[in-house]
């Protein structure tokens, strides 16, 4: 950090031009219009009819159920993708094997696929006309348009987050420490817990935070598979849309404030964790 500052001062001294000031000004104005304004209007609209209406809207049974379902989904999805991220990062960064590039690309697939396309993919596996459709119907198991479908598609959409944070970091850290521990007779679990985990804990948390934000906020993929059953399979992002289409904009924005606060928490945690990773 201090090195960075010194370098900046050097730069500013070397070039006493006026260019930076107007560049910074343009960046601030554009960001205010483009990013800050959409954020502020959420609260403006939610509170447009007063605090009482806002509180009633937030406390509405359907909205509360949506909050609950969103939280449960994240509670199932985030730990699973944490484990996946850890396993993938360990296999990729601690060993050499053919096809590594291909594996890395495969991990990235969900980042590049449109959420709607992801939803269609799942419909074609677990839906009535899907690959497993006949088999699931025979066993009387319903996956589509129910909570498991929401969780599955959210697993898909958020699967790369943790892996993507861990792999570059563990790559840089190498495997010397782990190899020393192994030579000294430590077991695999001991090596992971005592040697690897302390080095990656902040990045791991960081990945979990990003994964959680997306899991709670996913809209497109979930809207394909949820069936939008009121008070049953509506997550909070879907509830926002439902209220909005019911011509209840104030209610929609009230539900949206919960998600916006979640975004704030995400950004704050992100800033803290980024500083921690930089220090270590």
């Amino acid at each position: 950090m201090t090195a960075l500052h010194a370098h900046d001062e050097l730069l500013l001294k070397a070039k006493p031009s006026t260019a930076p000031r107007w560049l910074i000004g343009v960046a601030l104005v554009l960001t205010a219009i483009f990013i800050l304004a959409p954020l502020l209007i959420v609260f403006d609209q939610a509170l447009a009819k007063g605090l009482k209406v806002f509180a009633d809207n937030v406390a509405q049974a359907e909205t509360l159920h949506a909050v609950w379902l969103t939280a449960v989904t994240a509670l199932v999805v985030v730990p699973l993708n944490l484990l996946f991220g850890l396993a993938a990062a360990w296999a990729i960064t601690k060993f050499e094997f053919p096809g590594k590039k291909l594996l890395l690309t495969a991990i990235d697939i969900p980042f590049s696929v449109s959420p709607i396309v992801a939803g269609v993919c799942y419909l074609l596996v677990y839906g009535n006309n899907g690959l497993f459709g006949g088999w699931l119907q025979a066993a009387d198991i319903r996956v589509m348009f129910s909570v498991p479908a929401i969780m599955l598609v959210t697993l898909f959409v958020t699967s790369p987050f943790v892996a993507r944070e861990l792999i570059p970091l563990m790559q840089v850290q190498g495997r010397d420490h782990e190899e020393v521990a192994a030579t000294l007779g430590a077991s695999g679990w001991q090596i992971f817990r005592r040697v690897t985990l302390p080095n990656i804990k902040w990045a791991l948390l960081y990945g979990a935070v990003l994964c959680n934000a997306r899991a709670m906020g996913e809209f497109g993929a979930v809207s394909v598979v949820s069936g939008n059953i009121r008070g049953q399979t509506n997550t909070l992002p879907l509830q926002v849309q439902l209220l909005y289409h019911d011509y209840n904009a104030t209610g929609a924005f009230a539900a949206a404030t919960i998600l916006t606060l979640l975004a704030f928490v995400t950004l704050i945690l992100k800033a803290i964790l980024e500083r921690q990773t930089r220090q270590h």
Partner: protein
Amino acid sequence: MSLTATIRTQPQRPTVKRPALRRVLPGFGLTMGATLFYLALIVLLPVAALILKTADGGILRFWQVVSGPRAIAAFEVTIGAALIATAFNAVYGLLMAWVLARYRFPGRRLLDSLVDLPFALPTSVAGIALTALYAGNGWFGALLEPAGVKVVYTLAGVAMAMAFTSVPFVVRTVQPVIEELKPEIEEAAATLGASDWQAFRRVIYPAIFPAHLAGCAMAFARGMGEFGAVIFIAGNLPFKTEIAPLLIFIRLEEYDYPAASAIAVVLLAVAFTLLLTTNAIQAWRLKRVVKD
């Protein structure tokens, strides 16, 4: 992509020792098996199902759907708006990356955090917020519409929503590269009499170009796939502001699964092409860095 290259550039241990050391660490079978199993179940199987089910319908049916006038119009709207959004982000994102990487000023931290907001904010929230802003009675709409600029229910609105959700890709890909640039190069350019602009164009931009290109490719891919932020502001008029992901959704609601999956396959193919392109750009970038 970039990772394998990193490994090769690391100092090599004597080759005699290497095979012995490689097997020292445990857990390859467990972690590799778990990774492949999870990836197959959660990612590859559903993607394969889409391709298989569409192939089941036959190439003729596929072609009928994707070459139909409404689908063609939806592809045009999607690609056109994503191009406009990417062009905007190429400039705005580069400016933000530059300002955040190079200058220290009050409020810089806040600005840095705001850049990530589009990633953290759920897309349906972004969608209704942008619609409220640019609607005729909104903060910006009330200023723009009397001047004859309509954003809501137009291509401009679609592009605006796509630009909002994809701008962090450009900033976060370019910013670290600018931070790593050596100031000596610019100082040398300045000493040799180059103006700020000349130094940027001739010296700095070539160095960040691969990262900029990769960031723009990612932003374009995200824009093409965007759904939540777009559908509220677009008004979804067929042939005018209906994007391809929405047309998929409409076909699903009509239980026309073959049509939905045919359009989805096209989007999937575009996404794969862009993913491979981005990876190729990143690999090229890394090769350049290693050479330098």
